[in-house]
């Protein structure tokens, strides 16, 4: 315990120092040095994270009769707000944060390594801003780690904003490209908009409960959250209990980061950033922050706001099918993956939405976090694989690819493993986590189950469409300008590593070597479950059907895809256009907010308010202009006025 407490600050300090060092002195270093330094230091950070997490799970010191205890490794005062509300910066270690530490450090380390190869230009030199890239990568790792170990909701908000800004900086990495700048702005503003609700939610929650701390907020006692007492339950606003409103607003914050409909529009555009950044931030870690947030406050949702949880399930279900449909029609491989990410995160949200609390009731919770884990691994793998492909063919478009399986064998095999995992084919990890989500959904929410079941098939279809278009299908129309070839070991090692994780974690689960339910559950108590073959077999069936359809359409270059499209002309067009949500947003921001609010206000300010001030000055000026005639200097005139005045007074006197 003490040893862990001594190590704990380094989890934050090392990446932060790296950010400062690379940010301030990076331009004095060679590109390679900066990359190696960043990777090495993050390697150390990962080792510490692993050490803490493994120690926590397996040393037995933190377990009490099958229940994991939450401990605060450190917790220092940062800002005192009111007498009761105080922001701390601390390290909360419990199963949830330990899992997240593993996820983040693994993916981030792989991305650090991968980037050394990916950011290299084709002539072997690096892009000018490599130090900047590693600096921001360190900043991101710092912020993301700080987010998951937060002891209180305000610390989480602090790091939440920091991950937002590092995401902004990474998307706009190619800042000279207008599209990248636009995407970065969009990502930041949309998530910021959601964060506003998060903030308001925090304000409400903290005002009524009098605390920011998670350990107080989530303390469960006899079927309700202890801190929420009955008077608080009676406080309502517009007919809704105030705590429900608060946690719903907090969920909206999470929905922004996790790209839930209708706040998902920023994520596909965020693919303008460098691919490693997409893999890390926009696939594996930052975008699941919303899931993490709901999981973190899960007891509050479950006991005090069950209806909100239900809404979350429906929003999740809708988002997952919505994004999956769009993914079927996209041709930019990174965008396909982006929509797939949206869909999969929504899956996790659904799992939380249908989950109960306590042991096997909380299966959805466990499944959600486990899916977060497996998804992070295989989605990062998919992105990095896509990066390797983009690096080889210099294009994001499917039309410029094809027949790459012989040319890039390692990428091909690892990509295939990831595709099988996400399609839910055993024994890969994705199958098991997805299966548990479906089991949980079947028990609690039949609609969500039906939707998710369909999405499982759809996922298999669009992933294998992607896979075949890249690795089979036939050469692109004009052939390749440069012959694509396999990437160097720096880039393929992370692929192989993550593929290994995907396979091994699946096999471990299958043979019961490391049941995930022994690591994490909604009340941190171990329980046992078995694979439910009555759900698993049909879901495998759905996956296989999806794969078969994709094989039929895309294995070789034929007229079949076009024919298939001609059956669904209208829906296909809508899916290609992403259901015109972007256009709606564009209309609202440009034509309503900008033209109908901002411009009139600016005009009003210049012409009415300022005009009034100018008018005052003008009146003063004009009236003195008029009055000055009186002071003409002509004695005769003064005499006249004098005499007339005297006469008037005399007459009045009489």
């Amino acid at each position, binding site marked *: 315990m003490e040893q862990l407490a001594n190590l704990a600050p380094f989890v934050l300090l090392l990446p932060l120092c790296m950010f400062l060092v690379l940010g301030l002195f990076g331009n004095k270093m060679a590109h390679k040095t900066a990359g190696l330094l960043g990777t090495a230091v993050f390697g150390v950070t990962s080792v510490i994270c692993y050490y803490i997490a493994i120690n926590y799970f397996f040393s037995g010191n933190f377990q009490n009769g099958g229940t994991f205890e939450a401990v605060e490794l450190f917790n220092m*005062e*940062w*800002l*005192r*707000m*009111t007498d009761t*509300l105080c*922001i701390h910066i601390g390290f909360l270690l419990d199963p949830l944060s330990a899992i997240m530490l593993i996820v983040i450090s693994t993916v981030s380390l792989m991305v650090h390594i991968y980037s050394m190869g990916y950011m290299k230009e084709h002539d072997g030199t690096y892009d000018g801003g490599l130090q900047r890239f590693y600096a921001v990568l360190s900043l991101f790792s710092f912020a993301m780690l700080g987010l998951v170990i937060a002891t209180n909701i*305000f610390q989480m*908000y*602090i*790091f939440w*904003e*920091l991950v937002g*800004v590092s995401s*902004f900086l990474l998307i*706009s990495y190619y*800042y*000279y490209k*207008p599209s*990248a*700048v*636009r995407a*970065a*702005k969009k990502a*930041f*503003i949309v998530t*910021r*908009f959601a*964060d*506003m609700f998060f*903030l*308001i939610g925090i*304000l*409400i929650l*903290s*005002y009524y409960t009098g605390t920011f701390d998670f350990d107080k907020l989530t303390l469960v006692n006899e079927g309700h959250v202890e801190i929420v007492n009955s008077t608080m339950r009676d406080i309502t606003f517009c007919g809704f209990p105030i705590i429900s409103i608060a946690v719903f607003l907090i969920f909206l914050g999470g929905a922004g980061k996790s790209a839930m409909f209708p706040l998902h529009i920023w994520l596909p555009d965020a693919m303008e950033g460098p691919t490693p950044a997409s893999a890390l931030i926009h696939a594996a870690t930052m975008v699941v922050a919303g899931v993490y947030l709901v999981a973190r406050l899960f007891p509050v949702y479950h006991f005090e706001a069950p209806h909100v949880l239900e809404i979350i399930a429906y929003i999740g279900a809708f988002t997952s099918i919505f994004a999956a449909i769009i993914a079927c029609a996209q041709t930019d491989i990174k965008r396909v993956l982006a929509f797939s990410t949206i869909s999969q995160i929504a899956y996790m949200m659904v799992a939380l939405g249908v989950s109960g609390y306590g042991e096997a009731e909380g299966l959805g919770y466990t499944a959600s976090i486990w899916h977060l884990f497996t998804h992070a691994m295989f989605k990062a793998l998919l992105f990095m694989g896509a990066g390797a492909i983009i690096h080889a063919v210099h294009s994001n478009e499917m039309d410029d690819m094809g027949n790459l399986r012989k040319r890039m064998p390692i990428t091909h095999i690892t990509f295939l493993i990831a595709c099988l995992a996400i399609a839910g084919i055993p024994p890969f990890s994705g199958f098991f986590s997805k299966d548990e989500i479906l089991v949980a959904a079947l028990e609690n929410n039949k609609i969500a189950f039906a939707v998710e079941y369909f999405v499982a098939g759809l996922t298999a279809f669009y992933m294998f469409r992607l896979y075949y278009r890249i690795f089979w299908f036939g050469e692109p129309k004009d052939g390749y300008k440069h012959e694509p070839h396999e990437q160097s070991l720096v880039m393929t090692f992370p692929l192989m590593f993550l593929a290994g994780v995907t396979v091994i974690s699946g096999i471990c689960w299958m043979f019961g070597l490391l049941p995930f339910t022994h690591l994490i559950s909604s009340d941190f108590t171990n329980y046992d479950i078995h694979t439910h073959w009555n759900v698993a077999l049909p879901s495998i069936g759905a996956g296989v059907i999806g794969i078969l359809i994709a094989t039929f359409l895309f294995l070789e270059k034929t007229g079949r895809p076009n024919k298939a499209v001609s059956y669904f002309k209208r829906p296909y067009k809508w899916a290609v256009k992403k259901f015109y949500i972007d256009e709606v947003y564009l209309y609202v921001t440009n034509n309503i907010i*900008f033209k109908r*609010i*901002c*411009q009139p*206000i*600016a005009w009003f*300010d210049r012409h009415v*308010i*300022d005009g*009034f*001030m*100018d008018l005052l*000055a003008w009146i003063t000026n004009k009236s003195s202009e008029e009055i000055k005639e009186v002071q003409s200097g002509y004695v005769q005139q003064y005499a006249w006025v004098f005499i007339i005045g005297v006469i008037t007074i005399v007459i009045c006197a009489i």
Partner: protein
Amino acid sequence: MNILSLFVIIPLIMMAVIFCINGENKKLIRSVMTIGGVALLAVSVITTIEYFKEHGADPTAAFYLQEQFMWYERFNIRYAVGIDGVSVAMLLLSSIIVLTGAIISYAIENKAKEYYLWFLMLSVGVYGFFISIDLFTMFIFYEVALIPMYLLIGLWGSGKKEYSAMKLTLMLMGGSAFLMMGIFGIYFNSVPEGCDPTFKLDEIAAHVTMLRQNSSDVDTSLIDWEYIFFPLTFIGFGVLGAMFPFHTWSPDGHASAPTAVSMLHAGVLMKLGGYGCFRVAMYLMPDAANDLAWIFIILTGISVVYGAFSACVQTDLKYINAYSSVSHCGLVLFALLMMNKTAMTGAILQMVSHGLMTALFFALIGIIYGKTHTRDIREMGGLMKIIPVLSVCYVIAGLASLGLPGLSGFVAEMTIFVGAFQNADTFHRVFVIFGCTSIVITAVYILRVVGKMLFGPIQNEHHKDITDANLYEKIAVFTLIAAIAAVGIRPLELSDMIKDGVNVISTILAK
């Protein structure tokens, strides 16, 4: 002789020295300015240490390091100085900005000597205002700070400088006319039986408390004067704090002012407004403050959002920043009116934070303008590639402004929102949530500038060979960034110090 008077004496000595130097010898003048600026910063640091010592010894006093002597016995006008946690924060802020402003002003070539003389005059006024605890002295220093503005903008400014200078001066003078009525109103009315009228703040506050106690059970009309003079005083200071609808001097004034003057004006002078509202209007007229706050909450709430929306469509960098100041300073007054300790602490933190980051903004805008000869964001683009240091600094300033954690803006805004939310009635809640929207709108206009001016392709071929910041500019800019980051990373001590200062007034208001 008290250490506080040094804040007035050092600039005066500097003025005398510069007055004696030949105007051609710019190097010498600059070194005098720098040495003096450093000395002032040193004095403020020493004052802070002294304050902590005294505060440790007696944590309940209203003012520390007090000193006074009589100016005019008949009317009981004294030169009285003293500080509390709030003024210490303001003094530190002023010193940082005066020093960096002096360094940025190295670029002034035309009549540098006269420029610096007026610049110092402005500093005298600002420092004097923050250290005085006598209404009359305060008012004098207030006027001393305003007058040089006219000349500094009118002579060394750019664009429609005469118009802007006149507008700014007239509007602020109009404000001080209200203020004078307010001050005399307080002076003549805050006299319980058997006491002499006084200008000294803590004495007036004691008198007002006595009046309240006497009148509470007999006749409330005795304190009706507060209801006349509170609005006058609040608006008087509010004009300087850019409160809607009295803010229009700010965009024009800032746009025309030379760089360092903008820095000093937005960074420190506008804080006089917020500080005055807090120290004079609310401290001395608590009943009226409590009862009339709703009017000003509406006005300042409008300021916050209205300024932010206006900033979204401006194309001139200085206009954007001026409207952003309207929004941020609106938040200062807004938070003060929330009447509780946390929100008021947040207000003062916001003053510090806004002072630092707006000074940084104006410094950067000035430097960039000096190189590109345009402030129109549509004519610039891709500056990140050409002048990376300045661009990165601009991004940092922008992030501070939109409230990124780790920089000062976040600390201030969050303290304000948490504090403001402690008022549980619907009216306050609605306005707090209304105010919260500004964090999104701020992001919009900040990112718009960053995206247009710094990122993207290079717009103007002539901009390709401009050079990055020189050493002096870097020193000034980095100092400001360091201060912003320091407040943002370790806010605990500063916030606690301010809270101790606020405590006295928030207790009176809560009664």
